[in-house]
């Protein structure tokens, strides 16, 4: 440890310019496709919610049937946007915010290429009807080798660099490491097992839910929490409070995120102890989440930063943490059997998922982008108005979407519990909520469109700027520059 920290200390200030330019290509290689996937996901989600308004809309085309576009929307959000953003956060962490050079930028480009290739084939496969209906494991077989190779290519490298430049007792590095390691471990195990013909029966169900919640909490959730801890010192000038508590929360997160998925199986064909493990884990995760949230809010209150300028990153981060706490609490309370009896399999659970995915993961990753892109590109975001519009549209969109689904889910659950009401009438009573949810879905799409335009504007401006300034605009040249001392 000693000799590594010595050799890493020296170039902190020396190679800033080179360091930033070595970061540019990998970060853009992750961000630009991710923005495209964000678009794809929101368009698919909007189509899905329009189909709930009228199921005959685009009805005769098999590729766009509700059962295919709705998983495709979630999958493209998680794998197209979430995971690249997580890797982006790790890139930012291992270069200490662009102060250290990043070795091997080319690998990231190759990995990003492979990843997007695999994902395009995968999402197309889902739309074409090649999926096995396994929630987050739903990508078809032929897309898996490319995705796995891409992930290992960049994550293996990143783990090595992260460990080499380890920062003692940094919560950000811990959470990022958890995300980096959990995804290939569990994803690889799950993918291999699903293709073993001797694996069948209910074990497939428990495999599916072990992976689902693990991916959300231990994979992407850990990435987003790492990004939060990474960004906090930049906004407040100090890290999150209660570091010791945070370490406890981290270990609780490591241990119980793996077990939380079973909570979905309340009443399902599984032994009681498995379900109880899941329910208890959700509660322990809630306690850990509140501990992390406490560190965040205490730090935020202790240092009333900001002030002069409307900082988009800070607003996104705060909204993300708020959604995180609400989603973690709902995730625990709703699986209690006394509640689960009413709300299980209703859209209230979708509301919780929406809060977690779009509210927590999405907003935290936007905070990351708003903060790091200006520094990577050497140019600030061109318009505060567009950033504000993005924030307002997405925060209202997410709040209303989750609110409508939550209230609708309560009605649905109470009606479902009454055996006298036929299921057909239950769904009819839910329709007003589902139909009005198309409006916030539209707002979300608009928010992501605004973000995409803003990003495009930033890229064009910085490109023009660089071409004027120096001839380092070509990515290859930038990387050569990073290599030669």
């Amino acid at each position, binding site marked *: 440890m000693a000799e590594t920290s010595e050799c890493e200390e020296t170039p902190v200030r020396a190679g800033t310019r080179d360091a930033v330019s070595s970061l540019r290509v990998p970060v853009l290689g992750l961000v630009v496709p991710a923005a495209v996937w964000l678009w794809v996901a929101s368009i698919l989600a909007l189509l899905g919610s329009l*189909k709930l308004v009228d*199921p*005959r809309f685009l*009805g*005769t*085309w*098999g590729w766009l*049937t*509700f*059962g*295919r576009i*709705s998983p495709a929307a979630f999958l493209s959000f998680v794998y197209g946007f979430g995971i690249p953003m997580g890797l982006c956060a790790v890139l930012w962490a291992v270069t200490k915010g662009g102060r250290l050079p990043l070795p091997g930028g080319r690998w990231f480009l190759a990995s990003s290429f492979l990843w997007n290739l695999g994902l395009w084939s995968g999402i197309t496969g889902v739309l074409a*009807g*090649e999926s096995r*209906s*396994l929630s987050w494991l739903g990508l078809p077989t032929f897309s898996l080798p490319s995705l796995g190779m891409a992930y290992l290519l960049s994550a293996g490298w990143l783990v090595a660099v992260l460990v080499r430049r*380890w920062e003692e*007792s940094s919560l950000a*590095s811990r959470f990022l*490491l*958890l995300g980096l*390691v959990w995804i290939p*471990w569990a994803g690889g195990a799950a993918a291999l*097992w699903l293709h073993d013909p001797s*694996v*069948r*029966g*209910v*074990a*497939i*169900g*428990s*495999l599916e839910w*072990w992976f689902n919640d*693990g991916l959300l909490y*231990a994979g992407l959730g850990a990435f987003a929490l790492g990004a939060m801890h990474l960004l906090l010192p930049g906004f407040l000038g100090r890290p999150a409070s209660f570091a010791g508590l945070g370490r406890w929360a981290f270990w609780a997160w*490591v*241990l119980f995120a*793996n077990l939380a998925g*079973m909570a979905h199986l*309340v*009443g*399902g064909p*599984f*032994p009681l102890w*498995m379900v109880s*493990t899941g329910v208890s884990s959700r509660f322990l995760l809630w306690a850990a989440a509140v501990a992390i949230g406490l560190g965040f809010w205490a730090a935020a209150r202790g240092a009333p930063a900001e002030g002069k300028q409307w900082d988009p990153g800070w607003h996104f981060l705060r909204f993300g943490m708020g959604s995180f706490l609400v989603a973690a609490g709902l995730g625990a309370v709703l699986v209690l*059997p006394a509640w*689960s*009896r009413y709300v299980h*399999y209703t*859209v209230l*659970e979708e509301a919780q998922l929406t809060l977690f995915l779009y509210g927590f993961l999405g907003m935290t990753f936007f905070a990351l982008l708003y903060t790091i892109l200006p520094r990577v590109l050497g140019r600030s975001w061109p318009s505060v108005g567009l950033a504000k519009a993005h924030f307002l549209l997405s925060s209202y969109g997410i709040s209303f979407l989750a609110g409508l689904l939550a209230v609708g889910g309560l009605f649905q659950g109470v009606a*479902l*519990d*009454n*055996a006298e009401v036929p*299921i*057909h009438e239950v769904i009819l009573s839910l*329709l007003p909520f589902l139909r009005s949810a198309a409006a916030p879905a539209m707002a979300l799409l608009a928010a992501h469109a605004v973000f995409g335009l803003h990003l495009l504007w930033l890229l064009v401006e910085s490109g023009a700027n660089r071409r004027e300034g120096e001839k380092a605009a070509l990515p290859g040249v930038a990387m050569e520059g990073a290599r030669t001392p």
Partner: protein
Amino acid sequence: MTEPKRLLLGILLATGAGWSLLVWMPLTKLGPAGPGGAPFGRAAVGGRIYAANGCASCHTQVVRPANLGSDIARGWGARRTTPPEYREEHIVPLGVLRLGPDLANVGERRTDVRWYYRLLYDPRTIFPGSLMPSYRYLYARVPLLGTPLPDALPLAGRAALAPGFQVVPRPEARALVAYLLSLQRVPPAEADQSQ
């Protein structure tokens, strides 16, 4: 041992613990093998169609016990579903959301093949105002030569076709319906007894 190594080890072990408790042990303890067997032939193909078209987005295949919901009171099953009833299946769509009825035992409740064909072609002829999409792409429009084929759908009103054509289910629709008919989650022992 340095801190990152300790962390790495901890993460790997915790993930492994979750995997072995919740994936590996259930596989060895709760299945497979036993009487009853997996759906085969057309029903097995239909299971893949069921998964591919995302039926599990709106339908579950779980009957919860009487103290955890109205599933039994609604007649979705006589008892809660238990692991042996899923023993051999490769596709276990337990489901996430109920925008439609539970299908764990739909093959017991509805036994008319033609009812399923009509439902999948246009659910609104059976349940007006239903949210269920139409699966017309699982059907083919073929010329009518002589008398209609036995499986041709009886279409009337706005759905009626130009004269000289009929609508018949494609192999995908036939497989899907065979799968739905095969969904009778009775304990293996009872299945043996009825044969």
